[in-house]
């Protein structure tokens, strides 16, 4: 019951999903649509697990006065404020112009955009460290990256040649390598799916 039934559920639902791909008939389409909605609904319930984990961890830090507990207070404050502002006026709470959206625009959005913008710095430092002509491999990496980056720098008469070379690299050899990776991923992922469906890969189920 504890281990066999879940494996059976995995097998039946997995095989059903494979079969339904080949059957256009509406009876299968209906079950497929319900199954997809159930998955979404399970995800919504699981949200509470997440909130529970976050809240418990933060509260226990505050209670035990663990180092940095003050920051946990901030997290809890942000969480509670958002949930309160987001529900107290019913579904109008998240309309444009509410305090909920004010926080979204003036706190959430700028922090998110700035976190994202950190990448501009990191891409530069990663390039500096990684792009050294130590081996043939790293030289290829370095040279192609340079060629592609140079297309944004005015080089006078060289610009035209560089432009052509850059677009050739992007559309030809780049495409070939991506295809190889894609096909490999396809095989790896399909094999993993089969291992899951046939109950060979079951580490994710845990043990008793």
């Amino acid at each position, binding site marked *: 019951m504890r281990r066999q039934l879940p494996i059976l559920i995995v097998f039946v639902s997995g095989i059903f999903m494979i079969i339904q791909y080949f059957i256009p008939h509406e009876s299968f389409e209906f079950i497929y649509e319900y199954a997809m909605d159930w998955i979404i609904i399970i995800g919504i319930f699981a949200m509470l697990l997440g909130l529970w984990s976050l809240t418990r961890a933060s509260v226990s830090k505050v209670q035990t006065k663990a180092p940095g507990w003050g920051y946990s207070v901030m997290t809890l404050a942000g969480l509670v404020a958002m949930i309160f502002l987001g529900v107290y006026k019913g579904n109008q709470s998240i309309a444009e112009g509410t305090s909920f959206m004010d926080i979204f625009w003036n706190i959430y959005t700028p922090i998110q955009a700035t976190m994202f913008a950190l990448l501009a710095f990191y891409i530069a430092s990663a390039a500096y460290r990684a792009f050294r002509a130590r081996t043939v491999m790293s030289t290829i990496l370095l040279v192609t990256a340079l060629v592609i980056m140079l297309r944004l720098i005015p080089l006078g008469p060289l610009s035209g040649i560089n432009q052509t070379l850059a677009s050739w690299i992007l559309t030809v050899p780049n495409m070939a390598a991506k295809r190889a990776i894609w*096909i490999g991923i396809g095989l790896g992922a399909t094999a993993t799916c089969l291992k899951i469906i046939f109950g060979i890969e079951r580490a994710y189920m845990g043990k008793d």
Partner: protein
Amino acid sequence: METIGIWIAALLTLGIFSFLYKDNPFYKFCESLFVGVSAGYWFVTTFWQVFMPKLADNLVAGRFYYIIGAIFGVMMLLRLIPKIGWISRWSLALVVGTTAGLYFTRYLVSNGMVQVQYTIISLYVKGNLSQTIGNLVIVIGTFSGLIYFFFSKEHKGAFGGLAKLGIWFLMLSFGASFGYTVMSRMSLLIGRMDFLLGTWLGLIR
């Protein structure tokens, strides 16, 4: 009000940027606030935009099939009760099984068959040397790239040579993607700088 909003946004922006120098209380403050606000935002928007239309509205409309989803959802929550926590595996099994089946055909088609189909191209294009070379490179690159991903044979001899060619192709592709992405990442920083220097301080424009 708008000015206060801009000031808050600008200070938080600086707080996140300060992490580039080193971890500091200012960053920790922004980080913890961000975590709380984002978790709340995510919960609230999922509630109104997914839970209500997908479950509540359907149940109200009398589509009781959706109860099954809700039952599985509640089972998931039983994890919080250690004694019967194992029941949550049933919902997990449904999620994993369904998506494994769904992704099986999806990966097989779009990562396997479609890619192979695109790669079966003529090696000789009459009167078009550059396309002939291009097609040849694509076929050789894909072929040698796949050799690299072969697990059953050690990379030695001619086979190893092909595998090496394959990894060269991979590196070329990685370099190209890296170089190409620099522009969009710089765009993000330009956006923030424009906000700080223009919208906030009014120094530019």
